[in-house]
Structures are given as structure tokens and as C-alpha cells.
């Protein structure tokens, strides 16, 4: 009987000790994985990524807070509106975990300070993340291996499927641990340093060059129009166009759509409809 009680009290003591000790590295990595796995899964119009942010904090919060009351308060704190780019967003997670740990170990960290930090950073971080991860890395990776796919090889899909997650998870892993150990300092280097600007600039240069190269190979637009003169001379319009600038029509098509989008906003369905009408009409008349 006595033995039982000592075991029980020791079991009870354990969480109290954990409260003062720092979180383990694997707890933070676990938070990163939960956020990575579900960042878009539960995404809703109402509060976007709030649910997954809260869910990703559960392994950490469970360790930091002993009473249900404290835990419940912490969970609710992380269910407020949140949305950012999921790869670079890991740095916000890291900082939030550090602040929660400080709060749990008795430092004076208000709820507003934690929420304020999250909402303050989510915009700028999303800007960097969207520009690097989505507008640059993803199309570049796909386009580098696209020729494999158009030649019928599965490598064209397999390589991007492996490399894209590998690279982005690597970035998240570094950022969440940096966020946790360096705190707010970790973002100042991200946001203020010229380094991010350089990376975005380089990515844009590479991305645009690749898009140009692919447009030349894959936008197919030519005219079969020929003019036969009474003298018997035949003029093939496409030959003349090729003499002026090869690929003139595909280039025009891309830029026409681009400048229309730029001027009128993302009216994709209207453009799709126009392409359908033009194609059917031009094919019927024998122009294209």
C-alpha cells in the first residue's frame, strides 16, 4: 500500500518538474510535422489555418500546462484567426512555442503578446513564402523535369513529387528550431536582411527564363493560310512570320493574355471561353 502511494506521488511530481525544464527538440519537430501535414486540410473560409495551428501546438501545450484550465486557455488562444504560408510559417510556430514556454515557466507573457506576434508576422511571412515556395520553387521544379514527362517518362512527375516536399520540409525544420531558440531575432534576419530579397530576385530571374523557354516549346500556334496569286506564285503566311521572328504567334498569345490579366484582373473563365471561341471559329475558317 505504501509503495503504491509513493509511486503515485512520484507520478504526480513528474509534470511539475517538466514545467521548469525546457521542451525537447522532438516536441518542436512534432509540432512542425502536424502543421505540415494539415496546413490546408482543415482550411476553412471562416478562420483559415487557425484549427491546424492549434492542433500543431497540442504536443507542446500538453507538456507545458498541467491543469485542464490552463491547457484549455492555451488551446483557445491558438484557435484565433491565423493564415500564412505553411513552409516559412514554421518560424512563427517556433517563436509561439518559445513564448508559450516562457509563459508556462512563470515569465510575464500576456495572451495578447502571443496572439499579436502571430497576427503581426503572418502577413510578411506569407509574402516571403508565397514568392519563394509557390511562385518560384514549384513552377521551376516542375518545368525543369517537364521534358521527361512530355517524352512519356514517369520521372517528369516523380522527381518534383520527391524534391518539392524534401526541400520545403527542410526549410520548415530549420526555421521552426531557429524560431524556438532565437525567438523574435530569427525573423528580423528573415524580414530585414537583403538576403531574402536576393533569393526572391534570383528565383524570379530563373523562373521567368524557364517560363520563356517552355513557352517556346509548348505553346503551339501556327497558321496554315496560303495566298495563291494569279501569276501562280504561292505565299505561305507562316513562312513569312518565321522569317520575321520565329515563334511570333505563341509569344503574342502569352503576352496578350498576360497584359489582359494585368489590366482586368484574374478573369480566367472569360479567357478560357475566349480561347474556345477563337479556336473553334479559326479552325472552322481555316485560319489556324
Amino acid at each position, binding site marked *: 500500500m505504501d509503495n503504491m502511494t509513493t509511486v503515485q506521488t512520484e507520478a504526480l511530481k513528474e509534470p511539475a518538474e517538466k514545467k521548469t525544464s525546457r521542451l525537447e527538440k522532438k516536441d518542436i519537430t512534432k509540432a512542425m510535422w502536424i502543421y505540415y501535414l494539415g496546413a490546408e486540410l482543415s482550411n476553412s473560409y471562416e478562420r483559415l489555418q487557425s484549427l491546424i495551428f492549434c492542433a500543431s501546438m497540442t504536443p507542446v501545450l500538453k507538456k507545458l500546462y498541467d491543469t485542464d484550465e490552463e491547457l484549455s486557455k492555451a488551446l483557445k488562444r491558438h484557435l484565433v484567426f491565423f493564415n500564412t504560408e505553411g513552409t516559412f510559417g514554421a518560424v512563427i510556430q517556433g517563436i509561439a512555442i518559445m513564448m508559450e514556454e516562457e509563459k508556462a515557466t512563470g515569465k510575464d507573457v500576456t495572451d495578447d503578446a502571443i496572439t499579436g506576434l502571430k497576427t503581426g508576422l503572418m502577413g510578411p511571412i506569407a509574402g516571403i513564402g508565397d514568392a519563394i515556395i509557390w511562385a518560384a520553387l514549384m513552377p521551376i521544379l516542375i518545368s525543369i523535369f517537364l*521534358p521527361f514527362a512530355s517524352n512519356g517518362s514517369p520521372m517528369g*512527375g516523380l522527381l518534383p513529387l520527391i524534391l518539392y516536399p524534401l526541400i520545403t520540409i527542410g526549410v520548415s525544420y530549420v526555421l521552426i528550431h531557429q524560431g524556438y531558440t532565437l525567438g523574435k531575432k530569427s525573423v528580423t534576419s528573415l524580414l530585414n536582411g537583403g538576403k531574402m530579397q536576393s533569393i526572391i530576385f534570383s528565383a524570379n530571374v530563373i523562373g521567368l527564363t524557364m517560363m520563356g523557354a517552355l513557352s517556346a516549346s509548348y505553346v503551339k500556334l501556327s497558321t496554315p493560310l496560303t495566298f495563291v496569286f494569279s501569276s501562280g506564285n504561292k505565299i505561305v503566311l507562316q513562312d513569312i512570320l518565321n522569317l520575321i521572328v520565329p515563334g511570333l504567334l505563341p509569344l503574342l498569345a502569352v503576352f496578350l493574355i498576360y497584359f489582359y490579366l494585368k489590366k482586368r484582373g484574374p478573369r480566367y473563365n472569360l479567357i478560357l471561353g475566349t480561347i474556345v471561341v477563337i479556336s473553334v471559329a479559326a479552325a472552322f475558317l481555316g485560319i489556324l
Partner: protein
Amino acid sequence: MSVLPLAISMGIYYWFSRLRLGYTFSSMLLQPVVIGIFVGILTGNMALSMQIGAGLQLVYLGVTSTPGGNVPSDPALAGCVAIPLGVLANMKPEVAISLAIPFGVLGVFVDQLRRSTNAIWVHMADRYAEQANTKGILMAAFLFPALLGFVIRFPIVFVIDYLGVDAVKTFMTVVPTWLMHSFEVMGGILPALGFAITLMVIGKKKLLPFFIIGFFAVQYLKLDTMAMAIFAICTALLLNLFKIKEEA
């Protein structure tokens, strides 16, 4: 593989890729060029699957990159319908691309439905948070949206693929030549929309000369994509070295 198991497999694939399990993993999984691998394995015609996948990919190259995660068009629905149907009806890639477009548009509404219904789970999580139920919150973040997602996603692709095979095959035999040619023209122009959207997403008008360099390097010098990537990377590095950067 006969049509029924194929339609079931494609329905499951569409659900799973659109589940978005794994932030960047799933976003690659739902690209036509990856769907092509799956269809290639199922149908045994890897070459045509990948070619249609590649063509379709170009139309949707910039689509997933829109800030805020809103989809203007759904490459996964387009791919899960057009690639298997295109392979079974032995279509030219350009024709299959044209076939895909209406489904890409339809997919947007499906995603809006998902994001609206997902609000249910946030409210559920609010209650779990009140009870300090961390397990419940994880269920609300993963399990419940996944189950509802299946109900929303699976039937669409299953029905279209199951009923579509015969319809498409019949269509291919009765369609007049000029109309068939118009699909080829469409399939040739549609990638231009994909590139234009990607240019929009990159959003650096001042850097457009790089696009033109890439375009004519292929037109005049016949460089392949990998060579172009190498030159582009070196150019970017050198420009950084000389600190020639745009202001902003």
C-alpha cells in the same frame, strides 16, 4: 484495367490528393504531371498518360501559386478526368487538354464547398478547446474534414470517369474533322494561359526581358530545358554578385 476499378481508383486518388495531407507533398500530388504516373500504372499506357499529363500541367502551371491558397481552377479534377479518358480513347494530348478545361472550372466550386463546410470543424474544435480535449482537436483538424472530403470529392470523379469512357469514345468517332482540329488548336493555345498566369504570379514586370531571353534561346539556339535552367541559375548568381537588383 476495366472501367469500373479505374473509375473507383481515380475517385480515390482525387479525394486523397485534394485532401491536402502534407502541405507541399499534396500540392505536387494533385498536379497533372503526377496524376499521369498513377493513370499510367493503372492503364498500362505510361507514355500517353505522361504526355497528356505534361500538356495539361502547362495550363495549370501557375494556378496553385495564387496567394491565399484560393484555387482559380482545379488541376486535380481536370487531370483525374482528362488523363484516363484521354488514354482510353487514345486521344492526342492537345485534344485531351481541351476536354479537361470544363472540369478544371467545375473543381473550383467543389473546393469552395469544402472550405465552407470545414467551418463546422473549427466550431467543434472551439468546444474541444473548452474541455481541454487535445485529441478531439486533432480529430477535428484531420479525421472529420477527411471523411467529409471523401463524400464531396469521390463521387464526382467516379461518375464522370465511369460514364465518360463510352461517351468520349462515341464522341471521337462522330466529331467532324474541323471540330477535332479546333480542339487541337485549343490545346496548343491553352498553355499560353498557364504561362501568362505564372508571369502574373511572379509579378515582376521589369524582369520580363528574362522571359524573352528564355523564349528566343529556345527558338534560335534550340537549347533544352535543363541547359536553360543551368544558364538561368548562373545568370541569377552573377546578377546578385554585381548587386544589380530592382528597387522594391
